[in-house]
């Protein structure tokens, strides 16, 4: 019986151990991406693009060509690359601030145009790198540096539901899903689908991943896990919202 290697082959070892905080969800997401790159055999075809925010810490994470961009702008850079080099697989990596706030105009227009790119958005409900401010996905009542009394929905509205709005915007061929780092096998499968969809040239692919941020949440290990599973996953529905592969994942909670 083959034993799976501890680290994916596509990880770039000179930059390991990586720079994310202990308990950060990014490591799990990037492991799922690394394993998928290995299994799909696309290490030489992929261009990995980072946004700004904690996602940029992955700029030299993979033994793949990569480029690090500006806050919110990884989407247009990936669009430009893909349009000019359709044979490449472009994967944009961003956080909830980059994707849903400063880069939302790019995100929704890329989705509408059905750009054949794959975007992975790590949603940890706050701006991590700038010190834990409110983001579009901060939960109602959640305390952040800019919502010291908790997010007041009367003032700042309700959390952005990215996959939900992108499902409405996209046309046939798009793949839209939300996964969570608490369900690794599902995360890896959804990510594989998001990559496969680009490989097959079907259209826009988007995966939001619910992730942990113990440093800015100020939570210990158990509290971190509880917050993710008991609160965040209640607010954000996990599953495949749109898929060109038939019926979608069986674990989808159907309303």
């Amino acid at each position, binding site marked *: 019986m083959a034993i799976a290697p501890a680290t994916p082959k596509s990880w770039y070892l000179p930059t390991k151990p990586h720079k994310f905080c202990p308990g950060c969800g990014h490591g799990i997401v990037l492991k799922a991406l690394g394993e998928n790159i290995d299994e799909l055999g696309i290490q030489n075809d992929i261009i990995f693009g980072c946004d700004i925010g904690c996602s940029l810490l992955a700029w030299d994470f993979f033994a793949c060509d990569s480029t*690090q961009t500006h806050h919110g702008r990884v989407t*247009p850079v990936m669009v*430009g690359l893909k349009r000019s080099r359709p044979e490449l697989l472009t994967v944009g990596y961003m956080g909830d601030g980059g994707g849903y706030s400063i880069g939302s105009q*790019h995100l929704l227009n890329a989705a509408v145009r059905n750009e054949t790119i794959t975007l992975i958005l790590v949603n940890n409900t706050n701006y991590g790198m700038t010190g834990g401010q409110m983001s579009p996905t901060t939960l109602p009542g959640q305390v952040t540096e800019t919502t010291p009394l908790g997010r007041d929905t009367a003032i700042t509205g309700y959390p952005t539901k990215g996959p939900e709005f992108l499902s409405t915007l996209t046309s046939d061929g798009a793949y839209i899903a939300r996964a969570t780092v608490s369900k690794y096998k599902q995360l890896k499968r959804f990510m594989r689908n998001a990559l496969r969809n680009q490989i097959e040239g079907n259209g826009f692919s988007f995966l939001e991943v619910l992730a942990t941020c113990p440093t800015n949440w100020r939570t210990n290990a158990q509290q971190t896990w509880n917050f993710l599973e008991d609160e965040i996953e209640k607010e954000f529905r996990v599953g495949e919202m749109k898929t060109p592969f038939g019926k979608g994942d069986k674990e989808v909670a159907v309303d």
Partner: protein
Amino acid sequence: MEKIVEGSTRAFLTGNETIAWASLVAGAEFMFGYPITPQNEIMHYWTRLAPKYGRGFLQTEDEISAGFTVCGAVQGGKKAFTATAGPGNVLMQEPFGMAEAMRLPMVAIIQQRGGPSSGTVIYSQQEVNLTTFGGNGEGYRIVYSTASHQELYDYTIKAFNTAWTYRFPTFILGDGYQAKMREPLELYDPQEKGITLAESFPLVGLPGVIGENRQPQHLNNIYSLEEELYEKVMTFSAVFEKISPEIVEYEEDSCEGADIILISHGVVSRAARDAMLILRSQGIKAGYFRPVTLRPFPDEALKKVILQSNAKKALIAESSYGQLTRLIKQSIYGETINIDTLYKPGVGIVDYDIINKVKSIL
């Protein structure tokens, strides 16, 4: 593939069309654009011509995206460009900054309109500051300020070569008048003229197998420490200063022994040259100096011209309020020549504006 321009022919075009044709013959493979007057016909003609020659176009959601998609395309190794003006130029400063930081050979056409803010859609020379030094950095950019349709054609071809030779973002600084004027020019195939087109090359998505015969490419523009950035910026500065003498261009006419030197750039320099000739015909010894590159600026050339001319006065004429003057003053610091100015922000300047001004100050 059908040849784009056969031989060399005189043609009658608007400036914006000229840029579309020049980009085609320069080998541009992709344009990313967003509508803003007065550059629109660059897109209009590019979108009509590009499909015939296998070139691409995407109309993006805004100028920020147009700039960043160009960044992506040039990282992929394709000659790509965009065009904008005024508020669009403001928005594009962000991707232009990334192009400076990552040495991306992007080309942007700027057709200046009136400002600040939405200003007018018509004309100005008010985007000099923005185009030369607009980013949150040191202005590692190459800026050609053109004055005629022939120059729009020649320098657009050159801009792609400069960008891909030196790897700094390169700009054609035109204006709304140049964009819309119609005048004859010579269209030619650059290669038939002996102009070698610079090769494009990818920065990511390279051939080969990672870990076997090549390393992964990791491009970045952000650094953890002050010292890391300092090293980077100092290297950029050294490179930029080293290549500057190869890049600077200017025009000089009749400055030797002149009493007054007329300095201008872009389309205003046409009026300035006419003014110089008329003044000379009237017995007033006027000279003419025009920087073609506003960045890098022809500092040494202008200092030398001033020294050799013995002129006591210079008149700077610009369709903005001191943007050219600022570039000139920092270039010739230490010279004692008296500087007078003719500022008409957002308004055209004709030869008699300059002649009358000269007569009022001599």
